[in-house]
């Protein structure tokens, strides 16, 4: 074997000799000892014991996460696909690997490419969980100046950024949502391929969605030639676009570059969900208002036939009245203003509604909520879709002496943090209008009230995901408020009875809706159904169709996944 090169550091000798000659600038014995101790503290005593484990504060990694970090560093040499199922903590694994390499001095400059919506979330996680000085990319100079940079892949692939990124060398490159790299002809793939990198982590929950060549393309980014040339891969391992052959061998090859932890492996002690529908009976005044609004919506939508957009805004009014008088009032007030401008006088229909609205003195829903807070007597997060409802609930809680804090998407970051802290330390209730976005983790709370239901099930999932996630140690209770004999009841029926969405694992719904091409328009389709249907029976029938469609797709996806997992894992 050729001998290993040894590089001796001699930079110190000049300055040392200068001190000897001038006899000045000596340090003290105490500092000298401290310096040696500092060096000892940073020493990496062997090749394969993880250093990062005793630097983590505030959380303890799960066994599968630690095992993943070990394998990536010791067996996969720092180039790997992390393909855990959604919710098992790929971010944590990647963060630990980054931290480990930094502590070992093997990584100084790292780039993390993520979808733009996740840039801030990643930066915060690296800052807070791992105490790493990661920065979110904002300005052009940062490509060169920042050692740990989180940037949107869509920014990075555009000029003038692309050129800057390609002129750097990165000790570690992490790409989140790496299933967007499955096609070799895309700019994403070509960018990642051309970035100069030593170690590389590709994170995706779905390393293989359709064709086997997707997997080939992903692996080629990490280790070109791992499967040989593409033709060889096709001959050896592909019976068809989606059908593998020589599965045993393929599985072995895949395992050398990819780690996939699954829920079913029993890694994640996720607690149970208990879902309760709480029927709310409307008072006669509230019923009169709801019926009045429904009638108004019907009449108006007939008049405005053809103008779908304004017709849909009428459905919004109907949904609002299920939430609270206050939410509906705001919309009515705006209509009232508009009609005033157009015609100079208020239409008698609107006046009629305003009168019905005035007649509602007590609101059944908020009364039930307050009763429930008292019964639960623990921390509760309540979600509503409407600002006006949020304000009304907060006022009612204040009147009852129940300590509560608001939470909105529009709050500045530090206000969000402050509200979360107040909720954890002082308040019993958080009244939130938004669940999405970054950084709201409420594992210390285990009761969720859906005061009104978003018609977009992805948003319902986000709400639940705030509380029912890794780190939640107790069973989670979900209470869905359903006003009887209203459209809200139909929607809850669809979500709970037909789709069983409260039993789905996080991430499942997204896959289904994507496949059905309903991810972005389901809400609108539901509204259209309500608008177009003659009566409740028709609404139910058409919602049932959609439900059936989703259920079938879910089963199909589960079967496909099952098959795919079987050949990847042999399980």
């Amino acid at each position, binding site marked *: *074997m050729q001998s*290993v090169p*040894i*590089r*001796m*550091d001699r930079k*110190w*000798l000049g300055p*040392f*000799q200068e*001190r*000897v000659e001038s*006899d000045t*600038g*000596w*340090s*003290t*014995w*105490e*500092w*000298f*000892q*401290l*310096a*040696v*101790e*500092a*060096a*000892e*503290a940073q*020493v*990496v*005593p*062997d*090749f*394969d014991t993880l250093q*990062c484990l*005793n*630097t*983590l*504060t*505030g959380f303890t990694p799960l066994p599968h996460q630690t095992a993943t970090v070990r394998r990536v560093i010791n067996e996969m*040499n*720092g*180039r790997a696909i992390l393909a855990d199922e959604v919710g098992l903590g790929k971010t944590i694994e990647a963060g630990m690997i980054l*931290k480990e390499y930094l502590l*070992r*001095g*093997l990584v100084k400059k790292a780039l993390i490419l993520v979808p733009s919506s996740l840039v801030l979330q990643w930066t915060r996680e690296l800052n807070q969980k*791992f105490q790493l*000085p990661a920065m979110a990319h904002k300005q052009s100079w940062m490509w060169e100046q920042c050692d740990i940079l989180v940037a949107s892949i869509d920014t990075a692939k555009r000029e003038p950024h692309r050129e800057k990124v390609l002129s750097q060398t990165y000790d570690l490159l992490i790409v989140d949502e790496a299933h967007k790299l499955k096609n070799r002809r895309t700019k994403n793939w070509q960018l990642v391929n051309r970035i*100069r*990198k*030593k*170690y590389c982590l590709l994170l995706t929950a779905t390393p293989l969605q359709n064709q086997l060549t997707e997997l080939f393309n992903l692996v080629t980014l990490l*280790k*070109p*030639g791992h499967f*040989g*040339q593409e033709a060889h891969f096709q001959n050896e391992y592909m019976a068809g676009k989606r059908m593998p052959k020589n599965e045993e061998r393929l599985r072995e090859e895949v395992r050398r570059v990819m780690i996939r932890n699954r829920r079913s492996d029993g890694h994640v002690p996720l607690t149970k969900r208990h879902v309760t529908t709480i029927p709310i009976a409307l008072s006669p005044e509230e019923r009169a208002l709801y019926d009045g609004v429904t009638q108004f919506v019907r009449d108006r939508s007939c008049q405005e036939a053809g103008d779908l957009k304004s017709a849909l805004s009428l459905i919004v009014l109907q949904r609002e009245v299920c939430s609270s008088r206050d939410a509906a009032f705001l919309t009515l007030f705006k209509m009232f203003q508009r009609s005033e401008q157009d015609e100079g006088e208020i239409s008698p229909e609107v006046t009629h509604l305003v009168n019905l609205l005035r007649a509602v003195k007590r609101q059944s829903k908020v009364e039930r909520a307050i009763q429930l807070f008292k019964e639960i007597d623990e921390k509760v997060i309540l979600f509503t879709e409407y600002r006006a409802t949020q304000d009304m609930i907060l006022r009612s809680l204040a009147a009852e002496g129940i300590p509560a804090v608001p939470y909105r998407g529009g709050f500045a970051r530090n206000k969000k943090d402050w509200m979360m802290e107040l909720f954890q330390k002082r308040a019993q209730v958080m009244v939130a209008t938004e669940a999405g976005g970054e950084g709201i983790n409420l594992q210390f709370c285990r009761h969720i009230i859906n005061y009104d239901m978003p018609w977009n099930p992805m948003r319902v999932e986000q709400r639940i995901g705030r509380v029912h996630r890794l780190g939640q140690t107790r069973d989670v209770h979900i209470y869905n408020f359903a006003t009887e004999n209203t459209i809200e009841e139909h929607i809850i029926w669809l979500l709970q009875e037909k789709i069983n969405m409260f039993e789905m694992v996080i991430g499942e719904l997204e896959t289904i809706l994507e496949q059905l091409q309903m991810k972005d328009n389901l809400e609108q389709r539901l509204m259209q159904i309500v608008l177009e249907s003659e009566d409740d029976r028709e609404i139910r029938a058409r919602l049932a169709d959609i439900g059936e469609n989703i259920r079938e797709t879910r089963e199909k996806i589960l079967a496909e996944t099952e098959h795919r997992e079987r050949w990847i894992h042999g399980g």
Partner: protein
Amino acid sequence: MAADRIRRFTERFLTAHGCHFIEKSPNHLITQLSIEADKDLVHRPFYWMYVEKMGIEPQPSILTFVFDPQELDQHDRGECLNPGSPRFLTMLEAAKKRGRFVRLFEESARPVGNPLSSRPYIPWLGVNFQVSYVCDQKKDVIHCLGINLHSGEIMEDFFREMKRRRWNAKLPANRHTIQPQLRIAEGVGELERFLQTQIERQDMTWAKQALKRMRIELEQLEHFFPEGENNAEKEQRIRETIWQYHPRVEVEVINAGLFYLEAL
């Protein structure tokens, strides 16, 4: 590094810097930093430039360090120090920068007999080397070596031996140093040669394995990219593979000193 060692290190660091302690307990420290400590630990160069330019009374920071994460919320604006926390890493870097070079004279228990005579010191050069074995993985070993510049004798674990003695920064009265036979550069050369022999005696399995992994991947690249073509992509991947795996030993000097010893 365990919490109690971090606690001890922190306190010694602050003491060496002349910081004032406002509160002390086994699990926390509240300290009024000295100006120098502030410059080392609180990153605010513009503030110091401003203070010095304008001749304003400087106001160094007060910091609260907590060594037990469980107790963090008992302290206002407390920060937890653990082996990976940024402030602690800053402290380590600062200590390494401040403790580079010493020249020390051993304190003697033996009184000088005759006030007109002078007793000699023997000059030793002590160098603390950090040896890193690097491929796609890494490990470090610290070697604390010393060489007698008069006789050329080399001592391992020299630093530990020196820690058992007491030291003066100035040459005491009635003492003198003998002229070394070896120049400093020669002493360093001897130590490096000694260290190299030690390194070469180590088990080199790690390097063999890294080379093997590198060769396998380079072969894969040869098969993957079409032959003969001048392929930039292939060139880049070859460079990356070598960068990732090629085994080498990197030796850094942590610090060094001239130690004038009583005859051993």
